């Protein structure tokens, strides 16, 4: 049995599945990163993903046009983000509380609308929703292992990597990105230079809304082609964890998100074993918690180690002086 699992992991197909499964973590994580750096942590990524996933499915089913579904999904996610921004930035509501409220509303709201539209509270399987196309990269797709890994993904997966690069350039190379980081680091100073803190944070929250929406759409229009209740399953929060584990940088966030994706993929592989499925499904979440714990312990250990080394050096110096 274990052999089968190991064989499964050390295969091109597994690597490809890691990329596929990481996509709905990378995209919202990038969104989380942007809003975090602007000083307005977006705790509502989860809810935004859910709303976008739902809207995309419904609109693509009714219009029978996959792109209209995608656009509607993005707009719906932006709308939710705009609500959050309005509550927090303009009405002065607490960001965390408003975010939690939005998440709860998204969970209940999508189930309610799903029931109204389909009569089903579980999934949208009765709706004929569309899926985004899969891209086979010419030439590369014919290279044996590499082709399997790199080719044949849906557009969201490619988008996730391209956007990481974009976000990186945006944040560090454009004036707007520098403004965004400035606002997050010292809003008072930014304001004193004529930067509009509120507007920049609004922009950041909207961008995070778009990115989280892409993550949600990836779930319901690529990974699966239907909407299921609570189908985001905490990915919005894991994405937020990836932002911090990744040291609040785009590439670090990408790597952290892929790490979480790896554990997710691993739990899929282990599904074939005779272990209770609840245990297996727990793996990605437990891995997230573990990763964050290890990360903080390491940081503390490093500080202690530095302190110890310094003290030894100091003792040696005083001893040398004594001689």
């Amino acid at each position: 049995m274990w052999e089968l699992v190991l064989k499964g992991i050390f295969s091109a197909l597994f690597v490809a599945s890691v990329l596929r499964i990481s996509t709905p973590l990378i995209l919202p994580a990038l969104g989380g990163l942007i809003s975090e750096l602007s000083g307005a942590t977006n705790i509502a990524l989860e809810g935004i993903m859910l709303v976008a996933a739902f809207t995309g499915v419904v609109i693509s089913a009714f219009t029978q046009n996959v792109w209209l579904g995608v656009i509607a999904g993005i707009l719906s996610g932006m709308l939710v983000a705009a609500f959050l921004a309005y509550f927090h930035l303009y009405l002065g509501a607490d960001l965390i509380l408003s975010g939690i409220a939005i998440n709860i509303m998204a969970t209940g709201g999508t189930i309610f609308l799903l029931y109204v539209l389909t009569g089903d509270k579980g999934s949208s399987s009765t709706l004929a929703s569309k899926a985004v196309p899969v891209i086979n990269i010419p030439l590369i797709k014919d290279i044996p292992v590499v082709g399997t890994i790199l080719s044949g993904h849906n557009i969201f997966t490619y988008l996730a990597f391209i956007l990481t690069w974009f976000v990186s350039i945006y944040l560090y190379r454009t004036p707007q990105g520098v403004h965004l980081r400035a606002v997050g680091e010292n809003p008072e100073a930014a304001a004193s230079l004529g930067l509009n803190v509120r507007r920049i944070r609004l922009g950041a929250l909207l961008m995070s809304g778009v990115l989280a929406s892409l993550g949600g759409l990836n779930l319901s229009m690529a990974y699966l082609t239907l909407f299921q209740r609570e189908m985001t399953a905490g990915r919005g929060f894991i994405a937020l964890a990836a932002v911090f584990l990744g040291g609040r940088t785009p590439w670090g966030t990408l790597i952290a998100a892929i790490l979480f994706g790896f554990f997710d993929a691993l739990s899929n592989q282990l599904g074939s074993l005779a272990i209770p499925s609840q245990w297996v499904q727990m793996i990605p979440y437990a891995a997230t918690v573990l990763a964050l714990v290890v990360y903080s312990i390491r940081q503390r250990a490093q500080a202690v180690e530095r302190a110890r080394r310094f003290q030894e050096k100091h003792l040696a110096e005083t001893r040398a002086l004594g001689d």
Partner: protein
Amino acid sequence: MAVLVEMDQIIKIYPNGVVANDGVTFSVERGEIHALVGENGAGKTTLMKILYGEERPTSGVIRVNGRAVHFHSPQDAIQLGIGMVHQNFMQIPSLTVAENVVLGKEPTRRGLLDRKAAIQITEELSRQYGLKVDPEATIESVNVGMRQRVEILKILYRGAEILILDEPTAVLTPQETMELFKSIRTLVKQGKTVIFITHKLREVKEISDRVTVMRGGKVMGTLPTHEATREGLARMMVGRDVFLEVSKPLRARGEKVLEVRDLTYVSETGRQVLRGVSFSVYAGEILGVAGVEGNGQTELVEVLTGLRPATGGEARVLGTPILNRSPRAVRLAGVAHIPEDRLTNGLALTATINENLIVDRYFRPPFRRGWFIDNKEVRQHGQQLIERFDIRTPGGEVPVASLSGGNMQKVILAREFSSQPQLLIAAQPTRGVDVGATEFIREQLVEQRNRGTAVLLVSADLAEVMSLSDRLVVMYEGQITGVFPEAAKATEEEIGYYMLGVKRQSPEEMEAYL
């Protein structure tokens, strides 16, 4: 000379009813260095914030070049060439010096930030006005003096003709202050106008052409600097004669109260903040700690008072170890603490004066009766201290938050002095306190010393540590780099070299005096 800026009959009343400016008329001539002095709360900063568009006057007219203007934001002011350098720097720590200079008005190439151009701009301005900076260093890695020059470059980049500097020397060493003054003179030579807010009268004499004195929201007068004397200016500021120097009778020091040996502290981020600090404080002396802020003084005080854990070393008060004990245990060992940040560590702002006066003693009789606190005792205790320390308040039951800065500090003094400490640790005791209260606080510190308390005084105000201390040490990068057994005989310049790390004494040289 032509009048450049005129502020006419400015009145500023804040929504809470505080009158910050009460009919102020103030004018600045082109090309002059104009010092604006006054106690804290005299309304100088408010007046300048109005000129800079950060605050709007309740009434009154501002004229620039003879034309009346209405500023809605600092951007309007900067458009007309008025720039202000705040006391707390408006900078982004993780960005470079050059990026901070151009922030909000960046040079771009094809939509991207043009870093090369930013560096070039910074270097050119830096050369033109003699403000030395390292354009590619991040702000978090440069010292306070450079950060201040960055702040000046920022407003010059935005085209400032009138530079308002709000207490620019408060954070500088004497040498850095001299550098700054040199730059200010260069700026003026090139046609700029400088308004210099300060409360250090010696600097007024040294740098300014004219001086305006404010008190209680009003202008007491404007005069050419060469006609002003320090004593005269002080009298205008306070409204009575002020004793700038505290007289201090000679007094033989007593037994060793605090002994610190090889104290080290490494911050959570792994920075080595204290690198083996050793010294003693004796009964009946004031040991002053001088140094540029950020060289470990804050951490030293917080480690000694139980607010931070020490990483290594020893500290004893009359033989009792105090390191890594709770603040209460440290206090019970006979330590009193006037903290640097009185709003966070010194007071519970929403609690009443009476409550703040018992936080270090409520658990002991007579305040504690069984499981309860004896409120009658608390009120009496509060009433006594309010009278003794002249705390201006309608009563002991008002929240501390409603008091002025000076009166808040008096609440802390009342609590700490009345605990009859063996050791008094005072960190920046007169920061942000007006001249009158400063005088009172200094007298009280000397009074404690005369009564035989050991006093450890940490202050960024060099003149203050020099005049109050019996002995003085200088801290630089987490170490004591110099000790002056007779503070009165040291010169500011000499101490300045130690503060900058240019000079240092060897451990052998210092040993006998620590």
